[in-house]
Structure formats: structure tokens, C-alpha cells
């Protein structure tokens, strides 16, 4: 949950529930709604919507920002697949550090990372 840590560092407040899909806003982030649209369009494989949002990002944030946003989307189409396919758990230190956030967001109810006897492995 580095989004929260980044917010702590800068003094800004972001809505994590939006970032994991429980909310519908932009998490209070500059251009958050636009970036969210980009993620959804790309991940859904919606070419027309992707093209529209891509152009908006270029106009509002610049071409380099669009490319870096695309790169992060691509990276996070990789990491989850590797974690999910190998059962890689969250490190104990990270689990402890994010326990309150996970409880608030209901992440412990998800079973993809659980092992017998553990609430979050």
C-alpha cells in the first residue's frame, strides 16, 4: 500500500478504497479520474476508449506521462500474475505494517493469498 505511504510523506490524503475499487472517485489524486479511466480501458481491452483517454492524458499531462502510465499498467499486468501463479505471500513485516488498512478495506476476506490457518499469508 505505497499509495498511503506516499501520502504520508507528502501530507496529502488519498482514498484507498477508491484505488482498490470500492469507491468511484479519483482518490483525491491529481488527474486520478483520468488515470483510472486509462487503467480500466486498457485492462478491458477497449481500443476505442483507450484511444480517447490516451489522447486526453497527452493533452492534460503530456505524452511522457501517458507513456509512464502505460508502463505502470503493463508492469502491474505482470506482478499479480507472478504472485498469483506461485502463491507468493505478502511479507510478514508488510502484513503487520498494513494490518489496519487491510482490515478497513476488507482485503483479508479475499482468499487468493490465504493459506490454511492464516488470515493473510
Amino acid at each position, binding site marked *: 500500500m505505497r499509495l498511503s505511504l506516499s501520502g504520508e510523506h507528502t501530507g496529502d490524503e488519498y482514498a484507498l478504497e477508491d484505488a482498490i475499487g470500492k469507491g468511484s472517485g479519483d482518490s483525491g489524486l491529481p488527474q486520478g479520474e483520468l488515470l483510472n479511466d486509462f487503467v480500466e480501458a486498457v*485492462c478491458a481491452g477497449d481500443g476505442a476508449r483507450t484511444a480517447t483517454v490516451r489522447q486526453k492524458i497527452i493533452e492534460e499531462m503530456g505524452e511522457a506521462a501517458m507513456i509512464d502510465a*502505460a508502463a505502470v499498467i503493463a508492469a502491474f499486468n505482470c506482478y499479480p500474475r507472478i504472485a*498469483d501463479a506461485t*502463491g507468493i*505471500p505478502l511479507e510478514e513485516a508488510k502484513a503487520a505494517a498494513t494490518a489496519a488498512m487491510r482490515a478497513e478495506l476488507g482485503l483479508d476476506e479475499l482468499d487468493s493469498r490465504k493459506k490454511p490457518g492464516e488470515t493473510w499469508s
Partner: protein
Amino acid sequence: MVDTSPLVVRDDLKSALTQAWSEVAQTGAWLSGEQRLAIANEARNAWQCKLCQRRKEALSPYTIKGDHEHLGALPDAWLEAVHRIVTDSGRITESWYDATIAAGIIEDEFIELLSLVTIVTGADTFMRAIGLPPLVLPATGEQGTAPRRRPGGAKTGPGWAPTVAPEDAGPELGDFYETGPAAYIRRALTLVPGEAGRFWPLANQLYLSNPLRVELEGVERALTRAQMEFIATRTSAYLDCFY
């Protein structure tokens, strides 16, 4: 393709993408160039598979039986692995992993397959997002024999597959653990050191070589750290992964 585009892609990213792609159909540590090429083509084909689409829409993918629509170059267990990782990785379970291995994939082969599938999926996602056509795969794979040697120090854990922990790492992993954080996710591919060495240089440029950094001083990115993390979290959530 990135080279001839009017878009200005960071040199380090362009270089990492070009390098990773040039190795897709090369002889691997456990798989031949032809096997790797077949996996790469199947990873792209999986999106068209009707069985995968029905499973994705089902409450549980494990209740839907049937045959994958495929290109005819891979055994059934390999097809299931490629298709599931591409189309529904968020609902993979330990039972699925065990069954896949029992059905005929050596764990080392599985890790190489996984690395390859994620590289192809990541590259395709990036190209689609920036509005360029997908990178072209070669018509044939490199001829050669994979050495098929497991590195020393490999033990099962921290997930379902064996990995090499930093304290057990031998010469096969070189400076892998000195050049980035020893997070569990970074350990995931270490059973096949060559694949860890293929995947992470690309991932480092797509995202960050050190995800532990809170802000981006000294790193060339046109987004803020918080914007990057927002995109990362939203994308992971889209894949039902909350790692």
C-alpha cells in the same frame, strides 16, 4: 516498432523492452526456443478462448469444464497453465498449482512458462496502451538444447513453488539480490535464474527498480509517486490481486 514510432519512449524502457522481446524465442534454461515461441503465441491466443471467457464469467472457474481453443502446439497441462495465467490469474489456488504440476509440467518449466507469459502480456499491454501494434514474434524459435539444471539452494517457499532465498543464492543468481530489494515477489522466479534475469530488467523500467522508494527524486518519470501507486493499485485490483 517502438523505434519507428513518433512517440518518445524513455531510452531505458525502450532498451529493456527490445532486449526482453529479442529473448522470447531464444533457447531457455528448461525450454527450447520452439517451446518458448509456442507459449508466447498461445499467451496471445488465450484471450480468444471461449472456455476461458466462460470461466472468467463464472462464480468459480473450477466448476466450468471443457477444452481450450488453442493453436495446437502445446500439451494440455501447458495450455491450461498459459490460459489461466493470462485470463484469470487472480483465482489461481494452491490446488490448481499442484494439479498443474501433477499433470505434466516440471516446476522449473512452469516458472519459465510463467515468466514468458508475463513478459508477453506486459509487452502487449504496454503497446496497446500507447496505441502501437503488438511487437512481432519471430516465425521460428532458436535451435538449441536447454541445459535443464536447477540452481543450488532451491527450496519450496515462500509460496507454492521452490525459490532460492538470498541466503541460499549461489553463483547462478550472480548479483541478483544485490541489485534490488529481496522482496518475496522478486524471489518468485529465482528457481530459473535466467528468467529472473530476463523479467526484472523489463519490470524495473516499466515500474521502478526499487518500489520501496517513497518519492521519485533522481528517477526519470513523468508521474508523481502517488499517481504511479494509484495506477498500480487500480491495475492489481482489476486482476483481483491485492498483493
